[in-house]
Structure formats: structure tokens, C-alpha cells
């Protein structure tokens, strides 16, 4: 029985009928109280006084909490213990929670939270990359530097050399379901938290620390999130902790949801970057060396900024074999929201850096950028073999001399590259060459509307770079009627993880999907879990579930083999039946037989990713178990009177290995592409010079709407299996396709090309930025 089926999301029917419950939909006990934060109105300084009399007197208010009222730890940081739940008197950004209102209703709490009278002594905030560099305001002592070879020498010796700078804006997650939490106090100090989070275990830890109790007293349950995208990896901590403290204090259930504006003003976003580059290359566009400097705006607290900035460095090569490279990364501390995880986790920023470099090189040589890309791709394993045999000139991606295996700038061997083959197929299927010529014709004839086309590759490393996080657990029960209770540490945020993992369980037991009951993620069932992040959900949890299922199945097989006098290996689980020689019983009857014979029908499963080791300080090792690949071609049109633009067509081929569920994986690719294109085009975060975020609602912050998807949108999966030993040879798919949006960005840049000046476009490429770039190059 094959696991790979294009089945619908397990909750699809609940979604379409409105019956799917999210945290704010969970029925609450009577007397439930509601929380809202009062937030700072300055970006940097000290609180001199806080008069909360009007807050306390507001209708419906039960309690008001400040830092002084907290029972134990005042910290919600996922990393550095530098993120107080409520300000300790220092203000680090505009929007920082200062006090928490506990009231009889959500509206009463929100209204009262606006009534605080706070006196500040204001200091000049550090807002930009330039501000932070001038003040030497940073995390870690100095920049991290990863390098390969002598980049200085390579640059000096290179026949050609160009430099440039690229500014990349951040991105608001805009999960449709805002942050929310519900804490229900239990017996003798127990606390149950329902929360919209990708990381229930961290919520458990932060709540326990804030209450001053052992982890075992806190149970966190998450059935589903209304979108996460990294924004619910650490950003939900504050709500859950505040609710738990208020619940412990009042003895009543407490819940909190951020209004959208609060959500956008309080929580972190994608890191914005400035990337400086210096590249040397030969007459054929082969890169000799690239020197990158990343300036990463991390915001006020460390949060996950170090691994984000690391991952940006680790994707500075993207799909290209760089003979020499140096990446210098400055992690800058600013008085803005603490930038956090967001799909790709720094990878996209690093990748746009090298894609810009390649595009700039091609412009300098007057080449089609695709030619430069193909000249630098990591070789396919097939090419490596062919090269060894033929020992002569070869196709692009040629491996020189005796060096058979290419390595990344951080010393990892790239042995699984399919990029050259995949791009060849995509270029053919999308008719890239003819359309590029047609675009040139169009542009020659049309003075106002200009077209552009670009093909960009993706190679994305799969594994948490913090190696110990690459572990997962599962808990599976088979009940005596043959129904199966499935639980694992992964969380469902729409990506279809639960469905994919349930397909694994169904196949291991040879039963239909209806026999497998998917259950909410629960820290009491599977402990010590990692965040559902880094695209790792199905790789890790799928394997852990397989282990648990096989443990039970083997026990059943052993018992049934005795009954039916066959070898355990001859017991076949398929189509809801169990066959033993000539005998054939239902899976339910088999379960009942095992129960009656006192066979344990419950098991845990555990998995840890093999073969990875990584030294993030030295920048050497094998941080990733494997790479996921893909490529996209986008064609756009730009109005050179206003900068208005549109994506006309996008073609994508994406490598999901042997997909566990091709329908869900294709959905991830389509959605990620549009989200990635949004990041690089219309999604613009604007702060004023006081540090106030001016784009704090969908009225001012524009994510793509329905007509912003490409008018022609062809997405397919690459036909191949993972070279690494993953669950049914599938590949992780959550983050990698996000970076297909880069083809839109470079197509826009192509459309702006006129004459010799390189249209060095910054992101997001809003109409205004496009027009300015056009005017600058004209």
C-alpha cells in the first residue's frame, strides 16, 4: 500500500463548515476573564511613573498587573532571558507591554488598556541598521564570519569584479488567526493552557517558570493554528504566560487574544537586512569569489535572531558552487519589535543576496542570467559520475580536476543536487528562451509598459541548525476495537502535517484513514518536543510515528503468528484486514485478540536525525541532513509611469522527494510562492522616526490578494526521491518554496533594465521603489 495519496487535509470538512475550532473558539468555563496589554508609546527610555487608577476604575476591570505583581520569572524569551513579560521600567520598543488588564470581557480589557497614564524619560531610539552600527548596538561581541578559501585573493585575481548593496525589508506574518491563549487553572497548582503556538513545549516551560512550578504541573494543548509561518514559534509566549499568571491569581480561566493592530505592533516579524557584496568572476560568468556582509536588524531582544542570521549565512551560496566565499554577519540590536522566525528563517534573505549577485554579474557581462546560473550550479550526482568517466570538457556544473565533491562555504559536501537537471526541465517546459526573446521585443515596442522575466533556483538546507532540536516523539494507541489514537509532537498550522503523518500511520497498520484518529498536540502525551519549524514537521514526526506504529504492529504480529502458526513476518496488515496464511480477520478483531492475550497496544516512538553535526561558531560541519531543491520562472509587467506591476505567469518545479501527499505539497508550493512574492513586492513595513510602526493593520500593510497570484500559474513536483533516508523518501516542503518568490523580484528588476546602469532594486519592490529605480537608471 502506497503512502503517497493526494487526500484532502484531515480538517477540510471542518474548515468549510466553520466547525474547526481554534483557540478563541474553545468553549470557556463560566466566569472566564479576559486580558489585554497596556503598551508603551515610546521606543526607548525609562518609565518614570505609571498611573493606572483610570485603568482599574474602568468598567469590567477585575485586576491590573505590572512587573511587580509577577510571582516568579518575568521573562518570555525563547533564548536569552532578555524579554520581560511586562516592562521592568526600561522601554525597549514602541509597543512593549507595560501592564496587563484583567477584565470581564475582551472589549472591556482592550478599552481599559488604553487608559494608563505613563510618564517616560525618553531616549533617542536606535531604529535603523545605520543607527545600530553607529552605536555599535549588537548581539554577540562582533560579527560572525564564515569563510571558504582566500576570498581576497580570488577577488583581486578575478577578471571582473562588481560591488553593490541590497536592502531587504521585513515581513509581517499576517497569520489570519491572531495570537491567542486560554489558561484554565486546575487542581493543586496544575495549569492547562490552550494556545495558538508552534511550540507547545516552550509555552509549557515559560508558563512553569513564570508560575515558579515544575514543568510537570503545566499541560499545553494545541489542536490547530490559523496559520503560523514562524510567527507562533516564540511570539505566543507572552499571552500564555500572562493568562496563566492571571488564572493562578484569580482561580478563574483567563484568555487573551491580540486585536490585529496590537498583534502587529507587539510581535516580531521577519528580519530586514542590508547586504553588501563584492564579487569576482571570469569571462564566462563563473564566480571566483563572493564577499558578503549581512547587516541584520534583530530588534530589541535576541529571540531567535542568532540562528536566523546563521541560516542567512548558510544560504548565501544558494545553488551555486562558490570556489571562495566570505560571509560576515552583524546582528544588530534596535529599538523595534524583536524580529523572529518567519518561513525560511533567514534563508530567503541570504538567498536573495546571491541571486542579486548572479543577476548583477549577468548584467555586467550582458548575458542571460540563466547562463550565469547554469555555469555555477552545484553539479548533479549524475554529472559527477559522467565527469569521472568522460574526463574531459563537460556540461555546466562541471567538476574540476580531482575534486569530485563540491562543498558549501561552510564545508558541507553537496551530494544530492538536482538543480541543474531540474532547471533544464523547467526552462524547457516554461519556454523560457523564446519568452525572454519575446519580452525583449515587447520592450522595444512599448514605451510605458515594460516586461521582465527571470528564472531562479532554490536549494534549501533541511534540519534545525541547533542540532539537538532534531528529535521527535510520538504516542500511538490501538484500542481494542481497532481504532487508532495518533499523537506526536508536531503542531498543525495548515500545512497538512497531521494528515501526512496519519497517512503514515494508516499505511503501517494497513488500515483506512477513518481508523486513525488524529489528536491535538499535547505536552502530556509527548514531552520535550521541538517547535514545529524548520520545515521539519513531517520528517521528524513521521519517522517517530512510524517507529511507534511498528512497535505495536510487531507485537501484534508476534502474537497472531503464534495463534495462526505462521512466522511473524508472514502476518500481513492491509486493507483493514490482517492476514495470516489462509486466515483473514479484521484489524479490529486482531486488536481484540491481542488485548485479550494481554499484548500491549500502546507505544511511544522516537526519532533523531542521523549524520548531522555543526559548529556555528567556526561555521563548519554538516548542519543539514539534506537539501530541498526547486526553481521558478516568473514573467511580470511594470508600468513605468507609476511603478504598478503584475505577475503574468509563473512556472515552478519543486522537489518534495517522494511526496507523502502530492496535493498538500503542491498547496504548500503555491502558497509559499505567493507569500514570498508578497514579501518582495507589496508587503512594506513602515516605521516613523519615533519608532512607531505605521503599517499595523491590513488597511496599511498589504499581503497579496486573490488577483495578485500569477494569472498563469503552473506548479508541479519534481519526480525524484530523497537521497537521504527520510520517511518514505519524502522531503520537507514548508519553507523551501517560499524562495520561488525571488523570480518575481528579479523579473521586476529585469523589466527596469535600460542601458548600462544596473537596476539595483531594493525590496519590497513597491510601485514607488520600482519607479524610483526606473528613474535612477534612465
Amino acid at each position, binding site marked *: 500500500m502506497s503512502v503517497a495519496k493526494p487526500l484532502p487535509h484531515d480538517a477540510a470538512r471542518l474548515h468549510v463548515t466553520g466547525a474547526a475550532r481554534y483557540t478563541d473558539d474553545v468553549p470557556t468555563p463560566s466566569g472566564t476573564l479576559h486580558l489585554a496589554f497596556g503598551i508603551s508609546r515610546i521606543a526607548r527610555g525609562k518609565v518614570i511613573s505609571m498611573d493606572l487608577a483610570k485603568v482599574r476604575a474602568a468598567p469590567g476591570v477585575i485586576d491590573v498587573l505590572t512587573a511587580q505583581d509577577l510571582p516568579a520569572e518575568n521573562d518570555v524569551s525563547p533564548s536569552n532571558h532578555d524579554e520581560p513579560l511586562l516592562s521592568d521600567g526600561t522601554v525597549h520598543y514602541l509597543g512593549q507591554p507595560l501592564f496587563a488588564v484583567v477584565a470581564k470581557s475582551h472589549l472591556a480589557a482592550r478599552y481599559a488598556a488604553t487608559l494608563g497614564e505613563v510618564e517616560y524619560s525618553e531616549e533617542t531610539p536606535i531604529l535603523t541598521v545605520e543607527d545600530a552600527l553607529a552605536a555599535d548596538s549588537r548581539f554577540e561581541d562582533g560579527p560572525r564570519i564564515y569563510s571558504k578559501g582566500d576570498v581576497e585573493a580570488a577577488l583581486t585575481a578575478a577578471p571582473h569584479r562588481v560591488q553593490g548593496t541590497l536592502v531587504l525589508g521585513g515581513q509581517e506574518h499576517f497569520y489570519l488567526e491572531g495570537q491567542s491563549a486560554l489558561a484554565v487553572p486546575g487542581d493543586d497548582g496544575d495549569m492547562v493552557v490552550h494556545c495558538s503556538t508552534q511550540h507547545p513545549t516552550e509555552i509549557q516551560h515559560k508558563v512553569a517558570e513564570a508560575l515558579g512550578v515544575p514543568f510537570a504541573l503545566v499541560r499545553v494543548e494545541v489542536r490547530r493554528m490559523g*496559520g503560523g509561518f514562524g510567527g507562533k514559534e516564540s511570539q505566543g509566549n507572552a499571552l500564555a504566560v500572562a493568562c496563566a499568571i492571571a488564572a493562578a491569581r484569580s482561580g478563574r480561566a483567563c484568555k487573551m487574544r491580540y486585536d*490585529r493592530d496590537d498583534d502587529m505592533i507587539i510581535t516580531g516579524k521577519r528580519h530586514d537586512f542590508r547586504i553588501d557584496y563584492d564579487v569576482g568572476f571570469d569571462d564566462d560568468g563563473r564566480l571566483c569569489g563572493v564577499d558578503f556582509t549581512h547587516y541584520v536588524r534583530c530588534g530589541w531582544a535576541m529571540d531567535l535572531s542568532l540562528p536566523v542570521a546563521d541560516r542567512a549565512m548558510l544560504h548565501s551560496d544558494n545553488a551555486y558552487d562558490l570556489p571562495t566565499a566570505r560571509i560576515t554577519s552583524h546582528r544588530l540590536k534596535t529599538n523595534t519589535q524583536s524580529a523572529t522566525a518567519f518561513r525560511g528563517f533567514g534563508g530567503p534573505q541570504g538567498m536573495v543576496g546571491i541571486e542579486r549577485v548572479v543577476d548583477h554579474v549577468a548584467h555586467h557581462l550582458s548575458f542571460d542570467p540563466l547562463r550565469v546560473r547554469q555555469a555555477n550550479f552545484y553539479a548533479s550526482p549524475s554529472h559527477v559520475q559522467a565527469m569521472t568517466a568522460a574526463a574531459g570538457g563537460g556540461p555546466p556544473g562541471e567538476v574540476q580536476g580531482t575534486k569530485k565533491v563540491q562543498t558549501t562555504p561552510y564545508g558541507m559536501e553537496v551530494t544530492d543536487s538536482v538543480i541543474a537537471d531540474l532547471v533544464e526541465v523547467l526552462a524547457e517546459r516554461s519556454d523560457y528562451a523564446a519568452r525572454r526573446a519575446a519580452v525583449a521585443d515587447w520592450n522595444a515596442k512599448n514605451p510605458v509598459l515594460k516586461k521582465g522575466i527571470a528564472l531562479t533556483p532554490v536549494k534549501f538546507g533541511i534540519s534545525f541548525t541547533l542540532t539537538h532540536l532534531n528529535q521527535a516523539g510520538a504516542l500511538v494507541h490501538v484500542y481494542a476495537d481497532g481504532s487508532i489514537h495518533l499523537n506526536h509532537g508536531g503542531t498543525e498550522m495548515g500545512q497538512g502535517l497531521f494528515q501526512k503523518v496519519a497517512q503514515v500511520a494508516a499505511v503501517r497498520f494497513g488500515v483506512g484513514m477513518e481508523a486513525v484518529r488524529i489528536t491535538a498536540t499535547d505536552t502530556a502525551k509527548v514531552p520535550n518536543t521541538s517547535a514545529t519549524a524548520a520545515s521539519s514537521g513531517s520528517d521528524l514526526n513521521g519517522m517517530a510515528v512510524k517507529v511507534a506504529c511498528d512497535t505495536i504492529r510487531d507485537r501484534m504480529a508476534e502474537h497472531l503468528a503464534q495463534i495462526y502458526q505462521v512466522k511473524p513476518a508472514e502476518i500481513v496488515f492491509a486493507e483493514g484486514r490482517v492476514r495470516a496464511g489462509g486466515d483473514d480477520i479484521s484489524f479490529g478483531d486482531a486488536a481484540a485478540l491481542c488485548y485479550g492475550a494481554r499484548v500491549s497496544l500502546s507505544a511511544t516512538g522516537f526519532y533523531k536525525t542521523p549524520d548531522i553535526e555543526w559548529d556555528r561558531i567556526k561555521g563548519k560541519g554538516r548542519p543539514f541532513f539534506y537539501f530541498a531543491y526547486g526553481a521558478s520562472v516568473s514573467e511580470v509587467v511594470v508600468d513605468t509611469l507609476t511603478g504598478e506591476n503584475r505577475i503574468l505567469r509563473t512556472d515552478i518545479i519543486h522537489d518534495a522527494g517522494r511526496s507523502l501527499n502530492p496535493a498538500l505539497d503542491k498547496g504548500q508550493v503555491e502558497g509559499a510562492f505567493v507569500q514570498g512574492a508578497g514579501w518582495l513586492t507589496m508587503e512594506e513595513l513602515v516605521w516613523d522616526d519615533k519608532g512607531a510602526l505605521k503599517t499595523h493593520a491590513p488597511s496599511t500593510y498589504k499581503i497579496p490578494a486573490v488577483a495578485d497570484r500569477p494569472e498563469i500559474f503552473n506548479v508541479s513536483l519534481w519526480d525524484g526521491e530523497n537521497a537521504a533516508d527520510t520517511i518514505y523518501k519524502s522531503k520537507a516542503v514548508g519553507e523551501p518554496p517560499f524562495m520561488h518568490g525571488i523570480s518575481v523580484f528579479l523579473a521586476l528588476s529585469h523589466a527596469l533594465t535600460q542601458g548600462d546602469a544596473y537596476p539595483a532594486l531594493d525590496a519590497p519592490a513597491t510601485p514607488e521603489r520600482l519607479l524610483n529605480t526606473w528613474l535612477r537608471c534612465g
Partner: protein
Amino acid sequence: MEITFRLNGEDVTLSTEPTTTLLDWLREDRGLTGTKEGCNEGDCGACTVMVTDDQGPKALNACILFLPQLHGKAVRTVEGIAAPCGALHPVQEAMVDHHGSQCGFCTPGFIVSMATDHLTGSKDHDTTLAGNLCRCTGYAPIIRAARAAEAAPIPEHMRDTPPSSFPKNLGGAKRGQSPHALPTTSDELAAWAVEHPHGTIVAGATDVGLWVTKHHAPLGPVAFLHACDDLKEIEETEDAIRLGAAVTISRAMDALPYEELREMFRRYGSTQVRNAATIGGNIANGSPIGDSPPPLVALGATLHLRRGDTRRALPLEDFFLDYKKQDRAPGEFVEAVTVPKRPDRLRVYKLSKRADQDISAVCGAFYVPLDKAGNADEPRIAFGGMAGTPKRALHTEAALHDQPWTIASVERALPAMARDFQPLSDMRASAEYRLHTAKNMLLRAVMADTGAPLSVAEVRAEMRA
């Protein structure tokens, strides 16, 4: 206020504060949590419900819909889209089959929008779904689902009718008990407005809704306009169209015979917003970035104001005095706007970061009649986003008047634009960009008469030869 409406086929009568939103009531009082709060300002569509009144079914945002606005209407939420027997609606089936939901949080809103389109036969999904944001799917599977469901028969339960009985008039007669009113004629409204000169008039609540949900602003006495039938009238004469103040943007879009105005309105807010927002509201709130004033000013529209029994009319542009200041006395209200019928030479350009459902950085409208010699004859040009109010470009108009309508003479007139406007920088655009693109819009207006493709919306991908 005591109101009656029909909810998923069942009549509901309840007593409510005037500013309780349908969304809060559904989720917190009624226990119907299928309808979601995504933004609480009418920009994401997660709270979309279908409301049926005497003008038929339409999609609306429940988060900025006050309960009294539902009096006498029928509401259908996502819980009422599947048949009472539990059978899925064709759009629900199609969304499951085409993998149109991922996280599922926006899905109820999409389902209601799609079911409403299915009921009305609308097939322009890119337009009707522009007000439903999805962050997961990239929309492609949702559109595949919408198309797949088009031909399926309409389930009978979707044909809503208003409640079987409800008191028509919650205004005049009961005003003694409550300062809030639901008048059924503009005469009643006029009387109420004189009595409550600082009260709030609520038409579609697409702006006032946010005063409540975002700014916690007390509205004071409130009068709801939707039962004032005479304010919803559209009267067409030989040379003009008179739109009552409570005519929705959706209806105005169909009523006004100007192609580019219709296209601009197609991008104005979203379906849900256009179904609620009114032409009178868009003018009365005096926003410098409202999109209907520039084209209406360019066309030479007349505004009709009323206080008690006193009426007056003025050129629309004269209504806008300064930022947030209009020529409207306490107790006075916008009764109608009259738009002249002229040859369709209107050009309207709406510039925003996102094409659909975005507030304009600049909205430019150009009405340039030509005399027999091909010269501009009393051109009228108006902009939004360029000043504290919607404003005419009087210097530019003067520089163009009686000049040949050519690129060359337009280029000569462009410097006058800087005398007309000193725009501001904000999160939507810089002052420089606004001025530059305003000039380019005028260039586009003259280029448009040459017939070259000038909008990115008209361009298609290159295809295999």
C-alpha cells in the same frame, strides 16, 4: 434597541446596544464561532456573512456591521451554508476537493463569499473574492474550487427571505425612549438630526465601524440609515443621475455610465465593503483619500445637503473645506449627489501598493472635453491623496485650457501641478512620488487618447509561438 432579523433561517429578536457588532454577538452570545475575527476592521473577510434584504443577497463583513443594521434582514453565517440535513454546499464540496483550505481560518469567510456568488451567479471571482485574504494557499486552489462549483444547482435553503414579521419603524415613534433611531424616511432622519445635532449617522459603517472597534470612540446618539428608502433611490433624468446618500458603492458602480469610474469602483474596498459603504458616507466623512470624490468632482457633480426642512446644493468640491473639515452644519446631512451625464471621456487612475482593496496613494480623475479644434475645453481635474481634502488641480486646468490636447502641451502644463499640490509623505507614499505620479497620470490621460495599452491589467504573458 429591539431588533428582529433572521439567522440561518430562524427569526431572532433581541435588545442591543447600537454598537454591538454582529461578529461579537455571533461569537460571544450566540456561540456561533465559525465566523472568524481576522482584523476587526473589514479588511480581511474572515468574518464574511451573507445578508439578504429587499435588494437581494450580498456578502458583508460582520466585524463592522452593527446589529441594528440587520433589522428586518436575513443573515446566513458559515454554519448555515451546508443544508440543514448536513449535506455540503457545492462550494464547500469543491473547496474540499480542490484543497482550498490549509489553516482553515479564512475559509469560513471564503465559503460565505463563494456561496453568495454562487447564489447570485457572479463568476468574476478575482473581483468578488478580493476582500477575502488568505495567507496559506496562494489562492489558486480557491479559484479552482469556485470555478468548479459554478454550474452546480443552488441549494434551496440558500434563498433567504426577511423575517416573517418585524416592526418597520424603530425611529420616530420610539424616539422618546431611546436617543438611537432607525428612521424609514429622510424626513424622520432630518427631524432626528436636528434633535441630535452631534449624533452619529451610520450608513454602511465601513468607517464608523472602526471608530468603535479600533478607537473605542463613543458615538453618542446613533441613527441608522438603511431603512430610509428614499435615501436609497437612484433617479435618472435626461442629463443627470441623482444618487441618494445611502446608495451603496456597489449600486453606484452599476448606475454611473462611466467605464473607468466603474473600473475604479471595482478596486474600491472589496465586495463586502462596496456592499455596505455608501456614496453619501464616502463624501460626508471628507477623507482626503476617499475614492469617489475625485471622479465626481471631475464630472462636475452637485452635492445636496439638508437640515430640517432646509435644503441647499453646492458643487461637490466646495464641500471639502480643509482636512477633516467640511461645509456641513450641525444637524445637517448629505441627502444626495447629482452626477451629470456627459460623453464618457472620464479617465480615472487609482494608484496603490496593492491593486485590489487598497487605499489610494493617489487617485486622479480627468475630464477633458475637446473643442472642434482638438483643444482642451474647460478641463476638470481632481485628485485624492494629494492634499488635506479631495481637490481640483485649478492651476493645471488653467494651463491646459484652450491648449491642444497633446503630450507636448500637457508636458508644458505639468509644472502647474506643483502649484496645485504640496502632498505629504506617509506610509503609503512619499510626497515626491505622489507629485511625480500625479503628473504622470495626466500624461497617461492624454496618451490614453492614442489607444496604446497603458494599464498593466491589460497585458498578458508571452506565449509559445
